[in-house]
Structure formats: C-alpha cells, structure tokens
C-alpha cells in the first residue's frame, strides 16, 4: 500500500463524483450560481474553498478532543473566519481583479454549507490527515462543478474562456450572438440541473424514486 490506504482514497476521491457536495448533497448552490459567470473567478473560488476547507478541517480535527461540545460551532466559525480572512487578504494582494469580481463571496465562504458541513460531520470525529484529505476532496468536488459551470457560462455567454475570445469572429459576422441569459444566475441553475441530470443517469444508484 502506498501513500494512502483504500479508505483514505475513498475519502479523497468520493466527493469528486459519487458523493459530490454540489450535485449530490446539494450544498453550496448559492455561491455556485453567483461566481460562475466567468471561468476565472470560478477557478479562484474553487481553490479558495479547497484551501479553507482543508486547513479548517485539519485545525478542528487537531482540536476535536479539547473543544467543549456546547460551543463547538463558535470555535469552528472562529477557525473558518481566520482562514477566510487570510485567503481574502492573499487574493487582494495577488489577484485584485478577481477578488473584485468575487466581491462578498470570498467572505461568505465562512457560511458555505460545505465548510460547516465537513467540520461538523467529518473533522470533529476523524484524525487530522484524514480530515485534510476530506477537505481537499470536498473542495475539489465543489471546484470541479464550479469550473464546469463557469466554462459553459463564459463560453456561451461571452464567447471567451479565461478572458480570451474563443468563438471566432467569423461566427459573429455570420450573425451569431452571445447568449445574454447564460450570464444571468437563472441559467446557472439550468446548467447545474443538466450536470445533475447527466451525473445521475451515469450513476444509477444515486437516482431517487
């Protein structure tokens, strides 16, 4: 056995598909709709959430035997808030433009259901290394969906990817017009729904009757 045991592999890779926080557990939908009108903020948001969830998981996991049960939510919030502040400052320093596009949603990572959910459900009951993997897995699971949504929304809404025009000018000359609805949040919901549709039809055991 190499670096990871099979259980740890499940912890890391499960959230990418079968136990995806967005399309299976339906968490973090709000920010998935809000920050995905372009691909770049979607990627940055995915990375930010991954970092915050992973390290918050580790810290809470290290503290899990000392945190009094009745004030655990406050402790979790303090840890998450500290990490979110760090991430927010880093973004402001090195990616100011993206930070402006993400606006309040960086700060709102604190209230992200995925973050609180993993802290409550996983970090409080597992060892730091497992918790770290769980955080990375869930953050990436969230990020993948965000990138998918951002990809389609930027492609069809602005005709570009990462700010670079990919729809050739000839198309526009022929009368192609970028779809304004894809830029609006409602269409993000349709894209999430379509992803879920495809995902469920590939994973029949997830279908509910």
């Amino acid at each position, binding site marked *: 056995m190499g670096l990871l045991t099979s259980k740890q592999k499940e912890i890391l890779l499960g959230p990418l598909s079968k136990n995806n926080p967005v399309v299976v557990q339906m968490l973090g939908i709000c920010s998935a709709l809000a920050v995905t009108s372009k691909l770049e903020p979607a990627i940055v948001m995915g990375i930010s959430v991954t970092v915050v969830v992973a390290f918050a998981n580790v810290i809470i996991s290290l503290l899990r035997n000392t945190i009094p049960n009745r004030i655990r939510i406050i402790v979790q919030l303090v840890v998450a808030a500290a990490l979110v502040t760090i991430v927010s400052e880093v973004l402001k320093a090195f990616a100011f433009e993206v930070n402006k596009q993400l606006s309040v949603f960086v700060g709102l990572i604190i209230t992200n259901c995925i973050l609180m959910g993993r802290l409550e459900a996983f970090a409080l009951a597992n060892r730091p290394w497992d918790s770290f993997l769980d955080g990375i897995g869930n953050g990436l699971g969230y990020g993948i969906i965000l990138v998918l949504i951002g990809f389609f929304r930027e492609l069809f809404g602005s005709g570009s990817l990462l700010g670079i025009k990919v729809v050739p000018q000839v198309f526009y000359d022929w*009368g*192609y*017009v970028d*779809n*304004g*609805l*894809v830029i*609006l949040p409602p269409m993000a919901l*349709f894209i999430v729904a379509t992803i879920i*549709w495809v995902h469920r039809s590939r994973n029949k055991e997830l279908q509910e009757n």
Partner: protein
Amino acid sequence: MKVLKDFYESLRPHFEEGGRFSMFRSVYEGMDSFLFVPDTTSRTGVHIHDSMDAKRTMTAVIVSLIFPLLFGIYNTGYQHNLSIGADPGFVMTFLYGLLSVLPQLLVSYVVGLGIEFTVAQWKGEEIQEGFLVSGMLIPLIVPVDTPLWMIAVATAFAVIFAKEVFGGTGYNIFNVALVTRAFLFFAYPASMSGDKVFVRTAATFGIGGGEVVDGFSGATPLGQVGIATKEMIGTFQAVDVTGQPLSTWDMFWGLIPGSIGETSVAAILLGGILLLYTGVASWKTMLSVFVGGAAVSALFNLVGTTVAMSLSPIEHLCLGGFAFGAVFMATDPVTSARTETGKYIYGFLVGAMAILIRVLNPGYPEGMMLAILLMNIFAPLIDYFVVERNITRRLQRVKK
C-alpha cells in the same frame, strides 16, 4: 383514401416488433393516428368516448390560429411596403410576407417535433401531438426579423426544459411557446425588442427590398409609449412606420408593426370565437383577462403621471400581445387554472399583471408574456384554494 390506407397498412409489418424499422414504431403509430381516425374501441366495462380528444383539441386551436397567421403574413408584407414606399399589389405583398414567415414556422416545427420524436423514440412512448400547437404559436409571437438559429435554440431549450423534463405534453407547468419567447427575450434582447426587428426591410428570396423611406422608424406603438417622456402626456400619438398617426381602429384591425401574429385584434378575436365555439378555450379565462387588464389600466388612468399610464383601457387591450395572450396563451388548458372559480381569478390576475408590468417596469415595453408565465406558477395554488374552500363549505353543510 383507401389506396393510401392500404399502402400505409402494408408498411405496418416493418414497424412491428422485430421488423426492420421497429425502432421507429412510435413515429409510425404517430403518423397513423395523425392521418387516420383510430378505430380501436374498448372491449370491457362501460366507457363513454368523447370525440373531442387531444387531437381534435389541437386541431381546433391550429385552425383558429390560421386567422392571426394569415393576417400576420399579410401585415409583414404590408409593413415592408410601407417602409420602402412600394406598392406591388396584394399578391406580391402576401407572397413577401409568406416567404418571410414560413422559414420561422418550419424551423420551429422541425426543431420541436424533432426533439419530441427523439424523446418518444428513446423512451418507447407514443408521440404526443402537443407540439403541433406550440410550434405554430412560436413564430406568431416573435418579431419577423428574429434569426432562425435563435428560434431553433430557444425552441430546443423550451421543449426540453419546459416540457420533456416535466413529462411531456400535458404535464408542463409553463406554456412552452411563452418559455421560448422568454428565452429569446432574455438571451438575445437586441433581436427581440427595439425598433429594428419588428419590420422587415430587407429583401426576402429576391422579393421586395429597397431603400427605406425618409422618416422611417420600425418602433411598435408600445415601444413608442415606452420611450415617450412625461411632457407628451395628452399629446402622445402612436405613429406607423412612416410617421402617420395611428387611430385606435388601426390598432384594432392590426396593420401596425409588432410580433407576427399579435397585431390584429380582429383576427385574434375571430380565432377566439372559433375556440369558444368548439369549447376548447374557456370564456371565463378569456373574459377575465380582458376585465383585469381594463380595470388596472382604468386605475392607472386616474394616476396618469406617464404616457403609459394615460393610455385608455381600449388602447391597452388592443396594443402589443395582450389580445393574443388573452385568447391563445392564458386559455391553455394545461397551464391555466382548472377550477371554474379559479379561471376567473387566474384570468383577472393575468390581465392585471400584464398592464402592471407594461406600465411600471421601464425595462419591458410589454408585459403579457411575463404576466402569463408568472400566473402559470400560481395556477395550481389558485386551484388548491378554490378546492379547499369548496370542501370547507360542503363540510359545514354536512355538520348542520
């Protein structure tokens, strides 16, 4: 006819289970019941069959839609002639309109029916005839210059997300044709509003075309209302494409710029009478939409601080898509309220909301589409309360 039927029957073995084209069986069955009246009868129990099945309902709607369609075709040519100052005679005017409208009709049917057939095939179900009506409605409620690929994209979106995911014909929450229009409206606003799209000035297949006359403006009367300033209250006058004033009768007969099938209240009312005569549409819904619209616009008249508010109720009811929506969209038996009392409430609110959106929202010159879609959401709720109230009332009668 006998020959045709015999020929069609001779193909049947190929489409039965195990035949060469068994995968296309639902297409075969669909064409069978489309072309011929089914003669299958029930074998057990007591059944009363009404000849007014889904297919006859759809046929009645299609026939009533022919009035606005024919008028819309003529009007397309008429507006074109006005805009270039030509008079090629009735036949050429009609031909120009026909060639401009027909591609949209075809695209809408090909895309929509294509998806319906594919889904039916895929699920192994029979083909439902619901899209026959939607496919005809879609070209009637869009501007004549809407690019065909946009209609194709929007139709595909509407059929998949507003209809098939809910379970197909009869299960949709929203009116499919209106979802198509809403998609177009929000996705491609530049092609769905403004003064460039409602009058076709270019040549169609070599017919028509030419320099537009001086002072040409393709703005619809509602578009003109939307941009009118406060100083114009009392003096506002809707004009046609060449700047000539339009009377309320012009708006009623419908030789004005607008979406293809929506301009003529006269043609729409003819279709509406047919719908009422065949019993397909409910007069309760239809009437209460007009009452709701008239009531709210009369209220706005009392306020009268913008041009839109000061328009008389008659003008409000004649302009834009109001009449078309009231007759053909609000009465859609699937998406409207089903209880008899509910129909009054539903219709009244559709009319009221349409005028509210039209007058108060500066972003949208027209409100009928959004009003009907909004009320589609509330139709089940209205029905629920009507039924609940009925239950309570009858329970009380039992208790006494």
